[in-house]
């Protein structure tokens, strides 16, 4: 069990961001330790995706601070985030539909030959290797991802995030489109990555899944942080109550 010891891998302090008057994230602070999975929960539009996009470099926060390994991190675009070994599975998957799986997996980080040209064969081989682990039924390596099913597309997005030795992994509803077997494989993958010492932010609407996979759960409502609880100290009903009522249950409020 990690958490509460040593320097946090990530500290997001007092993060605020608004879109034309709407406070999408309002003074939220969360942290993440190595080898820990922190679940982010909340109703639709609570601000979960917006919060993690500040960490992944997709959005610029209006206020607040991000520390990585205890040091202030300058993250102003997705390239910066990748430099800090932050990998993200976006809710929208962020795939280029006209390209095949391998091209998407290596987008922005293509393998090249000594001449500086792309090494397509090597990239396809690596893609076949990782997909064999994530989704053994996956066959469509030559097709553009627009020709894939929702779950297959999600597998490609997951493969991209875990391939590049992330230290910090952000997963925004990674299993929303997956079948039960594939969901189980992702759950096992999360466990394995956790043992390797990665820190993982997991956004998921399934409270049982969060209770099973996460160490702590952070609940948001209307852009504000309701509270962060250790999952073993609460029941799923407690978490649901936090999501719906927007306040910590009485027996935890101390």
């Amino acid at each position, binding site marked *: 069990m990690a958490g509460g010891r040593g320097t946090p891998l990530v500290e997001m302090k007092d993060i605020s961001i608004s879109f034309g008057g709407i406070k999408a994230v309002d003074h939220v602070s969360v942290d993440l330790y190595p080898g820990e999975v922190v679940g982010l929960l909340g109703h639709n539009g609570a601000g979960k995706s917006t919060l993690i996009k500040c960490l*992944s470099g*997709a959005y610029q926060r209006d206020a607040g601070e991000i520390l990585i390994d205890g040091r202030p991190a300058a993250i102003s*675009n*997705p*390239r910066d985030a*990748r430099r800090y070994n932050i990998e*993200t599975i*976006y809710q*929208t*998957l*962020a*795939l*280029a*539909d*006209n*390209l095949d799986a391998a*091209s*998407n997996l290596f*987008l*922005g*980080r*293509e393998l*090249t030959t000594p001449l*500086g*040209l*792309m090494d*397509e*064969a*090597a990239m*396809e*081989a690596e893609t*076949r290797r990782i997909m*064999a682990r994530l989704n053994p039924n996956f*066959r469509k390596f030559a097709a553009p991802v*627009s*020709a894939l099913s929702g779950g297959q597309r999600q597998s490609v997005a997951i493969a991209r995030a875990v391939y590049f030795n992330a230290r910090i992994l952000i997963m925004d509803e990674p299993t929303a489109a997956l079948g039960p077997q594939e969901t189980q494989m992702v759950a096992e993958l999360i466990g394995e990555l956790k043992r390797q010492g990665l820190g993982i932010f997991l956004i998921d609407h399934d409270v049982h899944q969060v209770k099973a996979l996460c160490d702590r759960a952070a609940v948001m409502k209307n852009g504000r942080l309701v509270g962060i609880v250790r999952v073993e100290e609460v029941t799923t009903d407690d978490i649901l109550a936090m999501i719906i009522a927007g306040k910590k249950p009485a027996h935890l409020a101390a």
Partner: protein
Amino acid sequence: MQHARTRSDAPARKSIFDSLELDTRLLGMIGAFVVLCLVFNLVTDGRFLTPRNIFNLTIQTVSVAIMATGMVFVIVTRNIDLSVGALLATCSAVMAMVQTVVLPGWLGLGLGHWAIAPLAIAAGLATGAVIGGFQGWLVGFLGIPAFIVTLGGLLVWRNVAWYLTNGQTIGPLDPTYQLLGGINGTLGESLSWGFGLAATVFALVYMATSRRNRRAHDFPVKPRWAEAVLGLVVAGAILGFVAVLNAYEVPARKLARIFEARGAVLPEGFTAGYGLPFSVILLILIAAGMTVIARRTRFGRYVFATGGNPDAAALSGINTRWLTVKVFALMGVLCALSAVVASARLTFHSNDIGTLDELRVIAAAVIGGTALAGGSGTIYGAILGALIMQSLQSGMAMVGVDAPFQNIVVGAVLVLAVLVDILYRKRTGER
């Protein structure tokens, strides 16, 4: 386990077409082109498919085809460039002024000095890159729609060219420079064969190495006979093209003049073919280079990724603004190269050079299968599109179709080609 898979998941029997793994869209375009040529040949009693006419068609296509390869990148990234004809005019004006006024007058290089052509072309390329890059910056960094930037550019650069030359025709241009115009500079028969053979060997070696590469990774490959058939077709096409251009003979009068200039007499029965024009070689090199850029470089990959999903490209760490600048700068450089070919073909710079080229270039790219929605398009398609447009135009002129009808047909064909493309995409399930 993986190895067993790649072999066994293929259906037991494949049709001939599946085995060849041909691009059906390419086949369709080639088919349409062949039909077009045959019809014109029939109507003109065989005057359309003579070596002479094919030679002329080829050199007339080069200027638009060069720009069309760049337009593919522009349209793939969901932009448009309406200023290419005007930019061509500005580059042409700059090069004409540099070689007739700046270098001889201000720097004192004598007429015909060897450095005039390279320096003039360098100035033109720099002009194209800077203007193109500037337009790209307006689009990428300031967020002004490309349609507006380049619509403004159409007016601006057309009239900058006018201003630079006071609206006058500038010529004659430097003799070395004129070599890039087409008939004024050709490779001759034996060197053309050499070039054709080299190109054939290169194509075959390329096919063989990519096959070996796929084998090495245990990826599925085409059957050997399919590969051999494709190789033969490619070799036949290249060498056939060279043979046709070699068959166009230099007129006896011109030969006599050449021999006279050398102080010799034209031997009895001596003939010589023109062979490959330098401008066509330039187009072939550009086509090969642009194809490599599109398919094998990271820049090309980012162009297509940005066209497919700009947000995804940005989230993958691609600097899409800077990419826009580069794409437009590349377009500008290609406009400058087209300007070299166009003005060298005329042997002078004229004030109306490149007028309406933006429409021809966009039409060539679109007929060649470049989707205006972005994300898909091919270099060879755009070149074929340019060739189809030019054949249509000169075929109709040869048949004696009135000028207004020529343009009516070309306009209708453009719309029809896009309709066919939409239907094709629907059937193949492509977006």
